[in-house]
């Protein structure tokens, strides 16, 4: 059989992050998984977390809920097809799990100006007292839908549909430019 090279190509352009100490940085998250968990009408996050801890303790329980009874389960580990199939088989009946690792890409925007940059796109009030660390929400950044999660003081993870990823990347670079070239 012919040896076909297989490569998981990345949808973001190469990273042109600013130097250390810059007030704004944008970095893609290359590794890991995004699983879309869909629960039935009676499902809840506590049950889901318990189940995930049991089934896949190695993957963590980092959950972001875009909608009632739905979660994006994300993590930094790479999960094989067979491992995914095992998890899908073991997850309690009230949940189903769809792989979105390729469909939804993650990046991190961080630095002192991160809120000012995001305010150019989203109406959501991201001020520290209104949007706590760990909180996440689906919103629109300009014309593009994205999920914003606050991961640290001045650090926000963005999850975006793959097809929009390069456009959002470019737009964020434009929005951040004034802080890189003051």
């Amino acid at each position: 059989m012919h040896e076909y090279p297989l490569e998981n190509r990345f949808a973001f352009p190469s990273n042109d992050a600013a130097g250390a100490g810059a007030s704004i940085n944008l970095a893609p998250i290359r590794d890991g998984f995004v699983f879309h968990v869909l629960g039935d009408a009676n499902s809840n996050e506590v049950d889901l977390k318990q189940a995930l801890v049991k089934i896949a303790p190695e993957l963590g329980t980092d959950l972001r809920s875009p909608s009632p009874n739905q979660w994006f389960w994300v993590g930094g580990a790479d999960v094989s097809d067979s491992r995914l199939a095992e998890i899908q088989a073991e997850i309690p009946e009230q949940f189903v799990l769809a792989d979105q690792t390729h469909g939804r890409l993650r990046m991190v925007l961080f630095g002192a100006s991160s809120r000012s940059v995001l305010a150019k796109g989203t109406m959501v009030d991201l001020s520290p007292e209104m949007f706590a660390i760990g909180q996440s929400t689906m919103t629109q950044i300009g014309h593009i839908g994205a999920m914003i999660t606050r991961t640290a003081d001045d650090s926000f993870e963005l999850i975006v549909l793959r097809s929009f990823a390069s456009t959002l990347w470019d737009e964020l670079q434009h929005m951040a430019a004034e802080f890189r070239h003051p």
Partner: protein
Amino acid sequence: MTSFRIEGGTLIDRSDVRRFTFNGEALSGIGGDTVASALLANGKQLVGRSFKYHRPRGILTAGAAEPNALLTIGRDGRRDPNTRATMAELYDGLEARSQNCWPNVSFDIGAANGLLGPLLGAGFYYKTFMWPAAFWEKVYEPLIRKAAGLGRASYDPDPGYYEKCWAHCDLLVIGAGPTGLAAALTAGRAGARVIIADEGAQPGGGFLAEGSPVGGKPADTVLADIIGELHALPNVEIRKRTTVFAAYDDQVFGAVERVQKHLPENEINPHRAMERLWRIVARQVVLATGAEERPIVFGGNDRPGVMMAGAMRTYLNAYGVAPGKRVALFANNSQAYQTAVDLEARGIEVAAIIDPRTCPNINYAGKARLIAGAMVRDTAGRRAIKSITVRHDDGSDEVIAVDALGVSGGYSPIVHLACHRGGKPVWSDAHIGFMPPEKTDGMTPCGAVAGKAGIAACFAAGGVAAVKALAELGVMGEAASLPGVEQTAETVDHIQPVWRVASSKGKAFVDFQNDVAASDITLAMREGYDHVELAKRYTTNGMATDQGKTSNVNAIGILAENKRVSPGEIGTTTFRPFYTPVCFGALVGASKGMDFQPVRKSPLHGWAERHGAKFVETGLWYRSSWFPKDGETFWRDSVDREVNTVRTKVGICDVSTLGKIEVFGTDAAEFLNRVYCNAFLKLPVGKARYGIMLREDGFVYDDGTTSCLGENHYFMTTTTALAAGVLTHLEFCAQVLWPELDVRLASATDQWAQMAVAGPRSREVLSKIIDDDISNEAFPFLAAREVSMFGGRLKGRLFRISFSGELAYEIAVPAGYGESVADAVMIAGEEFGIAPYGTEALGVMRIEKGHVTHAEINGTVTPADLGMGRMVSAKKDDFIGRVMNLREGLVDPSRPSLVGIKPKSPSDKFATGSHILNPGDDVSLANDQGYVTSMCHSPTLGHPVGLALVKNGPKRHGEEVVIWNGLAGTTVTGILCDPAFVDPENEKLHA
């Protein structure tokens, strides 16, 4: 410096000399100047010409209300027409030009219109220019259009960068004068999130124009202390150069910040916005917008050198500019006397104060001669004022030589933002002005906009208002106070309304920019246009770029006087956004040019690029439309080759943009059965089915295939165009119509790279990379399941479906692997002559096969119209669209229905969008038989083929018709036929 620049000036920095040109003349000003203050400092009183009569005009105000001094500033893509000189900050190298005058502002031919004044009264154009009929467009209108308009807009693209932002606050303070600053200070000290916005270059408002000490300290020192404290508060944001231009529902305010408009080109940071649109979400608002001083309507009141009394103070105290050397004042209120005090303090002669009140109650102790009970009835001077004529109370006239006249007719609260959401302002006889509406939810008008006067009273009011607003938010605050200022009992300024000077000689203007005189308003009334809105529309009063800021209340006063009623009974016209004009650039932000809409890229975009694809915009997507090879110069060359390749060998096409939806849940089958008009309940695992979705009104919405991948798991594909729409529709069905069903929908469009591999050799190609058995027996037409690929290295989903009509598959793999898999297919297919094909070839093949797309599914067709009437289940008792699909008009046998169409002579061409007529019929809409929905050249058959919706079409196969294209001037004889031009028996499909 010129002789009009005097000492002082809170806003200017004399060490910073700035050069600029005005109509080509080199002049200089200083940092902090507006163009208006710099022009005045240079002795330039005549700066523009009016709209209709081209009368010479000067600078009337020192702010946003300026109706006269409109200049074109900058050049090429940075040219700003109609810029108010009173708001434009002077920068080094600024170029300003007068508008609406030819050959120049001092000598303007258009001024001849003034001689025709009586002919050009209000509404004259409605009464003439009607004969002969054709002359309006050909003669009159071009002349009028050429004469009308003010500045000339550039056709060059603007090199500036713009952006938009959201902002949130507990308290938005609009206006940073004494009132607003007190409110911001109060709320800031209480810990609330505060945004205070002001249109000026610096915050301060009334402080900046104040010539007298405040609480024993100079006004600018007091101001500096306040600003210093506000800057130190981390919860307070001061936005200068920021105009809050509109109030929208739910406490959303539009504001525009002129971030870099005050900078010369070489200092503009290209990464920073020129202007920035703010969308401010405020929990509470303090409206501290102040009041606009009103002109008085008297003969010759538009002559350069006539200026608002308050503006004179601003030029004196903020810019160190003298409005003249011998000044008179014409005022009906006591506040205006402060101008005389300040002028005299700077050693400028005040020749006279003309006050229509017979016993003005004032405590003015200056040197100027006070003429009580008198009016100014006329002015003289060719290009600027030389003298005024005063009519005394005994009826005698006196001419007084002056080179400037300050006017004050009272104060109009700037209530715009309080009225944008529908509130009507309320007339106050005490204030002689329209006050903010009584009900302004979440907004507290205070200070001058609420009728207060003077720094002390306004500052106190601002603090009180902020305390009240904070209380609404459950925050305690204490009103800020000015050190050393004692609250005195409020004194009421008795203003005597003067809507027009009855003894006026010559034209007395109400709306300066639109040249509306008092006589025009009276004429409108006489002709029946007596409602304030009709008067506005008939005379154009208040419709100029200043939106009547200085003219509307006077017009209302004149209407009221004529009708002998209170101005309150006349009412105002509607206050509408925007408070001051906002440029497109700011409202558009970065969404321009290529960034107008986001680009969506398929996971195979890079692969297609490497194969030289030409892309086409499809919604937000770019899709590969054809793949030219060397030597192919015309798109058809490539498309024909691609079609032939697929029909005889094998091709690969990117179909990743199709909508893909994972449908889960124990009721998923029941759900699908209800949203499709055909049956889905018994679709077995491992099978795909073509489905038609109707709207509830019975017409076809979308089509696609849905595959059963497992118990309670389906995979739906939709058309590219309706991917978002179908998901939204399904969510409506699942959440609203049938929330009791367990169905869960996940959009999976972006997860999968999907490619069609089509052609007689497609199975052989795929067999090389797919581990499973995909023989016809093991994987027949409409099979659909997960497969192992590349020796177990990758899993994909394989569907045996065909849009082209050939033996074909669609293979879906995780998007990141899309390019690798497409490359692998190309390698595997090399020995069979594989080629990539694009949407054009796909389109040709589907027409040849008689498959429909949204060219046919245009929202007005039923399944029966498309020849798929039998798919509509008669057994299911409920599905979306079932009942409305049965309406008389939807089952009418004469409805246009799908047919194939081809030219009688194979060499004849025809176009999509051509209509179908019966041979011999007259060309008329009544004889219209239908139209061509799609057509292409069929490389398979060697002639054009098309699809059409034709009345009774399916019964007319073989009939000759006329394919009529009146737009192109062509008619072709066509033959109606079966829409399946290729393989009508579906043998290839099942091979």
